[in-house]
């Protein structure tokens, strides 16, 4: 028992470095997914039929394949075909980010569509362009409504990041596996990995909960329902 703790104690800095990589990976992927997902959602709701179809196809593709298949397709397939020679970490951010964009776009699309048509009408009646109305009126409201769904996306992508083990990204699980094979003590090592994942999930979700409360519109029924 004691030597288990000692072993974990010694391995911890190495594992924690892995969690920094995981955080970077998840942060990068979520950010990429966000900046692609927003215009995708807007394009799907307000764009031409052609653009909407294009986005539909994108979402169909990235939501339709297992994340591991996507990783292999891009890392060993497309990226090497293009001779990009990307480090595994960068490739993982790209793949997870492009995939997250598909999911995030649908979170934002749902929020945009839940807003009444009147918001757009009123904005246009003041003389705002469509872009101005989307930027100043639609998105600030839609993003607020999207936080709970986005928090979900965070916790999912955090856990999905573990599959980048398969292309050798030095994240938590990859490092855990190294130690486990070296020490022949898989149980305590993977329990520690699990604990780190639980803490990261909890922490991120908590932060998003706080954000949700902070940007809540007074008087608006975003919070708990009385009935």
């Amino acid at each position, binding site marked *: 028992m004691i030597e288990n703790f000692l072993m974990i104690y010694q391995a911890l800095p190495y594992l924690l470095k892995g969690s920094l990589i995981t955080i970077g990976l998840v942060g990068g992927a979520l950010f990429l997914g966000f900046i692609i997902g927003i215009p995708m959602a807007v394009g799907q709701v307000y764009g031409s039929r052609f653009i909407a179809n294009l986005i539909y196809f994108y979402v169909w593709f990235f939501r339709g394949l297992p994340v591991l298949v996507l990783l292999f397709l891009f890392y060993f397939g497309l990226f090497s075909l293009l001779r990009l020679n990307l480090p595994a970490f960068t490739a993982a951010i790209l793949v997870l980010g492009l995939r997250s964009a598909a999911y995030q776009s649908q979170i934002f699309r749902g929020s945009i569509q839940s807003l009444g048509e009147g918001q757009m009408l009123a904005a246009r*009646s*003041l*003389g*705002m362009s469509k872009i101005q109305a989307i930027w100043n009126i639609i998105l600030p409201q839609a993003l607020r409504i999207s936080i709970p769904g986005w928090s979900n996306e965070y916790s999912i992508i955090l856990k999905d990041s573990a599959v980048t083990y398969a292309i050798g990204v030095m994240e938590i699980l990859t490092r855990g596996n190294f130690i486990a094979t070296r020490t022949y003590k898989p149980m305590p090592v993977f329990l520690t990995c699990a604990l780190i994942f639980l803490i990261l999930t909890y922490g991120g979700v908590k932060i998003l909960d706080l954000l949700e409360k902070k940007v809540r519109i007074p008087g608006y029924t975003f919070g708990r329902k009385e009935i």
Partner: protein
Amino acid sequence: MQSDKDIVLEVEDIHKKYREEKILKGVSFKVKKGETKVIIGPSGTGKSTLLRCINQLTIPDKGRVWLEGEEVTHTKKSINQFRQKIGMVFQDFNLFDHLTALGNIEIGLVKVKRMDKDKARQKAMEELKQVGLENQAYLYPAQLSGGQKQRVSIARALAMDPKVMLFDEPTSALDPELIGEVLEAIKNLAIQGMTMVLVTHEIGFARSVANEIIFIENGKILESGSPYKLFNNPEYERTRRFLKKITELYGESIEKR
């Protein structure tokens, strides 16, 4: 038509259909500076569509609109240039839910008129005072009553210094006891000489503020004229019956509320 300098808004032969259903079948009218036109008619006769055709929120299939002699339809200018000058008040208020009362008024000034923030704030505050809501400036729409929301939306439209104001059933979504304060605000505008087109069922109110009442049925103007003429001496029996019915429903006059 540009010859008459007094004419602020001119609407000519507006047609609109949705799928196969013809909503508007050629509506024309002119509004002079300072005039209040009230459009009445049974529901589903295209009154709201007509208002939206004026600022092109709905694009008419046929017909033209002029604002102060400049054509709004088929224009090379951006439609946004015209919409700034055409204030619109909606039945459901359509206040921006994420902004305070003050913010709702400011945003058009800052984003559309490119006014600097301090000036916009000052002007927004003045507009709120005009509708008696300076104490509610920092409340959000969800914290306001229906009547207060509608007054904010009037202030929001007025802040843009419009040439004409369009009201689309501004009191239809309000509780009866809140209608008075909104009508009061609109009446004040009429007194100050604002040019207005108003769709409403508040017939008593229409009678007291309208220079002309336009009766629309089945997408066409059946009859128009002064309130006196329409109430006392209408050309059509249909007009008399509609006015009688709506008077029974919505009461005689605003003063009795």
